[in-house]
């Protein structure tokens, strides 16, 4: 027996069978039911042991034909559908859509309504980022930050419930304003109190518990590096782009609403723990954006003007002349764009949505190659995708 066995660089192999022996990559189907794919994302992996050689995202499991539905309902009726794109930050989606309609219909928005829009949108952004931190921590195996983040998110949901009536899907903005004024029960003071509490007490808590945890840094720094060029090539936006060190934010660079009046900074990834554009950078950008959102909320509420909160009567449909308009806004996960073609009727001819998570997800195909399976989980977690927005 020992004669016809030789040592090769792959170990012991029988000479007789050496030609038949071949190794092949393991096809692994990650999702659509998998705890780390944040919904119904399916990743087709080709792995050799722990190393991923090819990763193909397969999307479409949550497709609801929303853009087609837009052609069958009138402009206002479609707002509820925008809530369901990025269901973790619905108000920012509303914002993207209503600004497009306002552009088309040439509607002016009262200042009070703009302030309320910004406050609710930023609250929504904080809620979404909190979930991003929570689930990213969970992907890294840290359970406890998840519960802490959800505790704070609960506060935001309560605040938004008081102003908009819903807890998850608000349907809050309408073309020309917002649906409800500030409730008369001390809402502004409560929001300010929450924002202060979050900034001064809760964020430092998360930082000590998760952000600067040694294991967490080991897991996320130098992992899944998205270079500036890659981010541009794949059309990444939002925290993913800023994590790669690009200082771009629609709120500052293409101001909509009244964002140009407020003073805030745009945090970018600086490669503090490793290379610019690694998972830790994308994570820390979100943490710092929460702080900036708190600043914006405080400014917007302190200068909240009196006056009407909407220009149109709520029950009347919007009159939109024929034409086309594109508006882009900074949603929680990136740049959310709406391209509306109107034919002058009650319903749009076509409504195209540019969703941020969809573009951000593509990058997995390039960056995921050569990572370990655990790192791939970190990468997908750090992109902070929402499948409701990818599939629409």
């Amino acid at each position, binding site marked *: 027996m020992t004669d016809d066995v030789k040592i090769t660089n792959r170990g012991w192999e029988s000479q007789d069978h050496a030609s038949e022996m071949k190794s092949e990559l393991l096809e*692994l189907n990650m999702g659509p039911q998998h705890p780390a794919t944040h919904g119904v994302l399916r990743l087709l992996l080709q792995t050799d042991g722990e190393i991923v050689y090819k990763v193909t995202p397969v999307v479409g499991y949550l497709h609801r034909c929303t853009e087609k539905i837009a052609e069958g309902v009138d402009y206002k009726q479609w707002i509820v559908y925008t809530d369901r794109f990025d269901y973790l930050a619905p108000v920012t989606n509303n914002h993207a859509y209503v600004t497009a309609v306002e552009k088309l219909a040439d509607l002016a928005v009262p200042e009070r309504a703009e302030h309320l829009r910004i406050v609710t949108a930023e609250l929504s952004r904080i809620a979404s980022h909190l979930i991003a931190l929570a689930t990213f921590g969970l992907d890294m*195996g*840290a*359970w406890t930050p998840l*519960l802490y983040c959800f505790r704070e998110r609960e506060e935001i949901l309560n605040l938004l419930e008081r102003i908009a009536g819903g807890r998850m899907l608000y349907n809050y903005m309408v073309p020309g304003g917002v649906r409800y004024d500030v409730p008369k029960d001390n809402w502004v003071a409560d929001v300010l109190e929450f924002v202060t509490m979050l900034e001064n007490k809760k964020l430092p808590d998360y930082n000590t518990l998760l952000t600067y945890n040694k294991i*967490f840094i080991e*897991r996320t720094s130098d992992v899944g590096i998205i270079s500036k060029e890659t981010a541009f090539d794949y059309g990444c936006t939002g925290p993913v782009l800023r994590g790669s060190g690009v200082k771009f934010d629609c709120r500052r660079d293409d101001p909509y609403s009244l964002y140009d009046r407020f003073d805030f900074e745009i945090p970018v990834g600086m490669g503090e723990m490793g290379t610019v554009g690694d998972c830790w950078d994308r994570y820390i950008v979100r943490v710092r954006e929460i702080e900036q959102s708190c600043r914006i909320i405080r400014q917007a509420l302190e200068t909240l003007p009196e006056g009407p909160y909407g220009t149109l009567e709520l029950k009347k449909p919007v009159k939109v002349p024929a034409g086309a308009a594109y508006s882009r806004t900074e949603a929680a996960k990136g740049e959310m764009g709406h391209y509306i073609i109107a034919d002058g009727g009650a319903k749009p001819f076509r409504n195209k949505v540019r969703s941020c998570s969809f573009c951000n997800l593509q990058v997995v195909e390039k960056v995921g190659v050569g990572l370990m*399976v*655990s790192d791939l989980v970190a990468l997908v977690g750090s992109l902070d995708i929402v499948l409701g927005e990818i599939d629409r």
Partner: protein
Amino acid sequence: MEAMYAFFMDTAGMDEMAAHITVAVIMATIMFIVMALCAIIFTWMERKVAGFLQSRYGPMRTGRWHGWAQAVADMLKILGKEDIIPAEADKPYFIFAPLLVLLGSLLAWAAIPWAPGFVAADLDLGLFYIFAVTSLVVLGILMAGWASNNKWALYGAARGAAQMVSYEIPLLLATIPVVLYTGSLNTQDIVIAQQGGVLNWFVFRDPFLFIAFWMYFIASIAETNRGPFDMPETESELVAGYHTEYTGMRFAFFFLAEYANLFLVSMIAVMVFLGGWWSPIPGLDFAPAACFVVKGVLMVFLNMWVRWTLPRVRVDQLMHLCWKVMIPVTLVCVVGAGIWMMASGAVG
């Protein structure tokens, strides 16, 4: 133990063989019941500790007082679940694997000295025996992963095998200084050597033993496959790891084994480093078994605290930690403790 032998041989009139078998059966039954009870209690405790750390309550309803009956209800529910064996699974291995995992920790429980003279199997090689039989757990996990015919389970099993085989080495090495001090592998002898208050516990005898204790603690977390080293399960990566395909009673066996193992490694820590059944203050040894269990539960709490606080390490970092950090450090501890013994005249 002697009293039991005497009772069966003299009073009941059995010959020596029959007495031995009877005592063994009785002890095994007691151990199994205690183990099952521990698993149930620790399941509840884990949920309460997790709740406490996560600013929530945990189970509160079942059984009125802080949901004490929740774990019992869970066990009853899991007994009533359908037992599914995947069509393509390797049936004999699939069925045998959970039993092997449970067996590994149950056998080790036999050599735990609960109180002076109260140990199911008073072996001269007690400590060696414990580490030898707990190696069975690796086989069980590997079998479960392979037999499930599921890629995620296979991943979990491969990770688990690599991890547990590696971490057995620092686990063993960390206890060797204590064996040097005691000059015996008998579990009772090890505890007896720590008589005389908290400063005589091996953990505080010399700095090398102190380091060895923490090395043991870290390795024991890895050995029980719990966070931050829960590579075989890694619920966010591998769905549920090696027990992905298991349901009902078979899953319960894995669950039982996890908590039995958790308490086992905690008890070994207590036995080897933390003075076993001796109370911290000399002369207050009224309830040795209670003292032993309380210390064990505190160790379990520490374990849970770590699990619910830290993120999980990656599999290569885990291996790096074992082979490049913990094994050298424990080796230094072995040598250092030996030198300390000679220098301080602890050795004759």
